[in-house]
C-alpha cells in the first residue's frame, strides 16, 4: 500500500526546505541585527522559543493548563548556575557548552519529582496543583538562601578556563550561537516528539481522556511522561538563560514568569506546532521593546491577550493558517480591503485609547514630572479637559467605525468559508 502520510519523512522536500530556512535564519540573524541589544534579544528569543515550545507540550498537545512552568525553567537555571560555578572552581570538569544540559537534567528530575503529584489529575485540579507547586517552590527559593542565593540570587562567570578554538563564550555573539544550536536541536526534537506514538496519544488524551482509557492507555502515565519531556526542555531553556545572563534570581521561578509562558504560548498559538515560536519571539519583543516604549506595556499586553482569547483563541498561528487556507482557494484577494479597513480603524482606536492610558499613567506615576505628556509627537495635557475630550472622541469614533467594519468583515468571511466548504465537497465527490 502506498498511501502518502503527511508526516515526518527524511525525504520530504518541503520539510527539508523549512528546516534549512530555520537554520539559515538562526545563523544569519546576528549578521542582520548586529547591534549589542539585538544580539542579546536574539539570544533571549532562542531561549523563549524553547521555553514556550516545551510549555506547549503541556498546553497545546496535552491539554494541560500549567500555571507553574517557570518552576522547571527556573530550577534548571539554578542547577546550571551551580554547575557553572563548580566548573569555574575546577570541582567539576564540564565544558560550558554542556551546562544547559545540566539544566535539562535538573528540569527532568524536578518534573519526575513534582509531576508525579501534578499529573495525577487532569483539567482544573491539574491547573490548581501546578499553581500550588509554583508557590511552594517560590517560597522555598526565598527560604533556602544557600541554594537560591536569597533575594540577590546567585551569579557566575561563563568564561571558564582557556578559550577552545577561539570560543570563550565571553562575547555575546558566541553565546548567541550556542543558544542557536540548542534552539535548532530542541525545536527539531520537540517537533519529532509530535510524530511519535506517545506524542499522538498525548493529543488523544487532550481531546478525550476517557476514550483513551478504553483503547489500552493509562492516561495518567501519558500525562506524566509528557510532563517529564516538557520539564527536560524547560530545564534546557533555563540553563541557557543562566549562561546568557550570568545571574539567576528568585524571579525565574516566580508566578509572573509562569504567566508569561502561558500568555505568549497562547498568543503565538497553542494549536499549531510553530505557534509558540512566534510566541517566544513576541515575548522578548514585548519585554524589551514595548517596555521601553511605554510604562503601561503590561496593560497593553493584557488587552491584547483579552482580545485574542475572545476573537482568535487559536492565536496568531491559527490566524496565519486560516488565511493560508483562504489563499489556497484563491480568495484572499476578496478580503484585503476589509483587512485594510480593520487595520486602519484599529489603529485609530489604539491612538485614542493609548492617549488616555498614557495620561492616566502620567497622572498616577509621573505627576511630579510636569503637566505635559509627549505622545507620538503630540503634547497632551492630562489636567486639561480638552485633551481628554479629544482622546475620547478619537477612541469612540474609531470604535464605532471598527465595529461596522468588523460586522461587514464577519459576514464576508463566513461567506468565503461557506464557498470553501462547498468547493471541498465538490472535490470530494469527483
Amino acid at each position: 500500500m502506498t498511501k502518502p502520510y503527511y508526516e515526518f519523512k527524511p525525504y520530504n522536500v518541503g520539510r527539508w526546505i523549512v528546516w534549512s530556512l530555520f537554520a539559515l535564519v538562526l545563523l544569519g540573524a546576528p549578521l542582520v541585527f548586529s547591534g549589542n541589544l539585538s544580539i542579546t534579544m536574539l539570544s533571549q528569543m532562542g531561549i523563549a522559543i524553547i521555553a514556550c515550545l516545551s510549555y506547549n507540550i503541556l498546553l497545546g498537545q496535552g491539554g494541560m493548563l500549567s500555571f507553574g512552568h517557570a518552576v522547571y525553567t527556573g530550577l534548571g537555571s539554578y542547577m546550571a548556575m551551580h554547575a557553572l560555578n563548580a566548573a569555574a572552581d575546577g570541582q567539576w570538569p564540564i565544558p560550558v557548552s554542556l551546562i544547559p544540559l545540566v539544566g535539562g537534567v535538573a528540569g527532568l528530575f524536578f518534573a519526575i519529582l513534582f509531576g508525579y503529584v501534578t499529573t495525577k489529575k487532569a483539567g482544573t485540579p491539574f491547573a490548581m496543583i501546578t499553581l500550588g507547586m509554583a508557590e511552594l517552590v517560590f517560597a522555598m527559593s526565598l527560604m533556602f538562601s544557600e541554594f537560591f542565593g536569597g533575594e540577590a540570587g546567585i551569579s557566575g562567570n561563563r568564561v571558564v578556563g582557556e578559550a577552545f578554538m577561539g570560543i570563550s563564550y565571553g562575547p555575546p555573539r558566541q553565546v548567541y550561537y550556542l543558544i542557536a544550536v540548542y534552539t535548532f536541536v530542541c525545536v527539531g526534537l520537540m517537533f519529532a516528539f509530535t510524530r511519535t506514538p506517545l506524542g499522538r496519544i498525548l493529543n488523544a488524551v487532550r481531546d478525550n481522556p476517557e476514550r483513551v482509557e478504553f483503547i489500552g492507555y493509562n492516561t495518567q502515565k501519558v500525562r506524566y511522561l509528557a510532563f517529564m519531556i516538557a520539564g527536560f526542555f524547560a530545564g534546557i531553556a533555563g540553563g541557557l538563560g543562566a549562561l546568557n545572563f550570568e545571574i539567576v534570581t528568585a524571579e525565574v521561578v516566580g508566578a509572573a514568569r509562569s504567566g508569561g509562558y502561558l500568555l505568549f504560548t497562547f498568543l503565538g498559538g497553542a494549536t499549531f506546532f510553530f505557534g509558540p515560536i512566534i510566541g517566544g519571539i513576541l515575548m522578548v519583543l514585548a519585554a524589551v521593546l514595548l517596555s521601553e516604549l511605554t510604562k503601561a506595556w503590561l496593560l497593553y499586553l493584557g488587552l491584547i491577550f483579552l482580545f485574542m482569547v475572545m476573537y482568535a483563541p487559536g492565536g496568531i498561528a491559527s490566524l496565519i493558517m486560516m488565511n493560508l487556507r483562504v489563499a489556497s482557494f484563491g480568495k484572499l484577494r476578496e478580503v484585503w480591503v476589509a483587512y485594510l479597513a480593520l487595520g486602519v480603524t484599529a489603529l485609530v482606536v489604539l491612538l485614542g485609547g493609548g492617549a488616555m492610558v498614557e495620561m492616566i499613567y502620567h497622572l498616577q506615576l509621573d505627576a511630579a514630572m510636569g503637566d505635559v505628556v509627549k505622545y507620538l509627537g503630540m503634547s497632551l495635557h492630562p489636567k486639561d479637559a480638552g485633551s481628554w475630550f479629544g482622546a475620547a472622541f478619537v477612541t469612540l469614533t474609531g470604535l464605532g467605525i471598527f465595529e461596522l467594519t468588523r460586522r461587514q468583515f464577519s459576514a464576508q468571511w463566513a461567506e468565503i468559508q461557506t464557498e470553501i466548504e462547498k468547493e471541498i465537497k465538490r472535490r470530494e465527490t469527483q
Partner: protein
Amino acid sequence: MSSATSTADTGRFEQAMSHVHAGGYALELRDLRKRFGKTEIIRGVDLAVRPGERVAIIGPNGAGKSTLFNLISGRFEPSSGEVLLNGHRIDGKKPFEINRLGLSRSFQITNIFPKLSVFENLRCGVLWSLGYKYTLFRFLAGMDDANQRADELMKMIRLDKKHDTLAMNLTYAEQRALEIGITIAGGANVILLDEPTAGMSKSETSRFIDLIREVTVGKTLLTVEHDMGVVFGLADKIAVVVYGEVIAFDTPEAVRANPKVQEAYLGSVLADEQAASAGH
C-alpha cells in the same frame, strides 16, 4: 496485513485465550451487583456468553443496561460479584487493563477524538495492540503495520475518503461509524456496543447493522439496542434486563414467547410499535 501485525495480534490474545478451557465462556458475570448510595441498580446479574456469540441486551429505560456495560468495561467498580473475561477475573481492574486483555467497548454518546483526523483516530486505536505502547523513539510514519491496519479499518467503516477530515467535521452517522472503528481497532475479541444506532434514521440503521455484522465477524458481541427489528435480526441470543435483573436469556424466538418477558417489557414495546405503525 503484514506478518508483524498478525504476530502482535496473536501475542496479545495468547495469554487471555490460554485460560479458555473447552466449553469456556468469553464473558461471564456472576451475581454482579452495583449500588449507588442506598439504591441497588444492578441486582445480582448472572450471564454467560460463549465465544463468537452475538448477544443483544434489551430492557426499558433505566433498567441498568448501560450500567452493566460500565461494570464490565471497568468504568465503574462492581459493589460485589465477579466478571470473567476468557476465564480471567477482570472486576475491579482499570478500563485500560481490561482493554489490554481483549475487551473493547463503544459508547452511547459518541466518544471519539474530535481534533484528530479519521486516520489518526483509528491509528490511536491500533497502537497499543501492535506493541507500540508509550513509544518515544520511533516515528509513526515508519510503523507500516499500524498505518496499514488503520487504512484497512478506514475502508471497513467506509470512511476511506475522509482520511484527513477531522473527526469533529464528520456527519453524525460517520462519527458513529468511527466510534465502531476505534472500538474494533485494537483487535479485541469481546466487543461491547452501547446503542450503536442511537439517533440514526431507519435506512441508516439497517446499513449500519450490516456494517456491524461485517466488522465483528468471529468476535463475541454484546450490544444494547432499542430497535426490536435490529435486535431480532442481529442477535443469536437476547438478554432481557428489567430493574437490574436479567429476567430472561435465550434465543430470540424463546424470548419472544416468554410470558414473563411479554408481561414485563416486550408486550408494551410491541404494542407501542403496533400502535405507532397503525397511526401512520
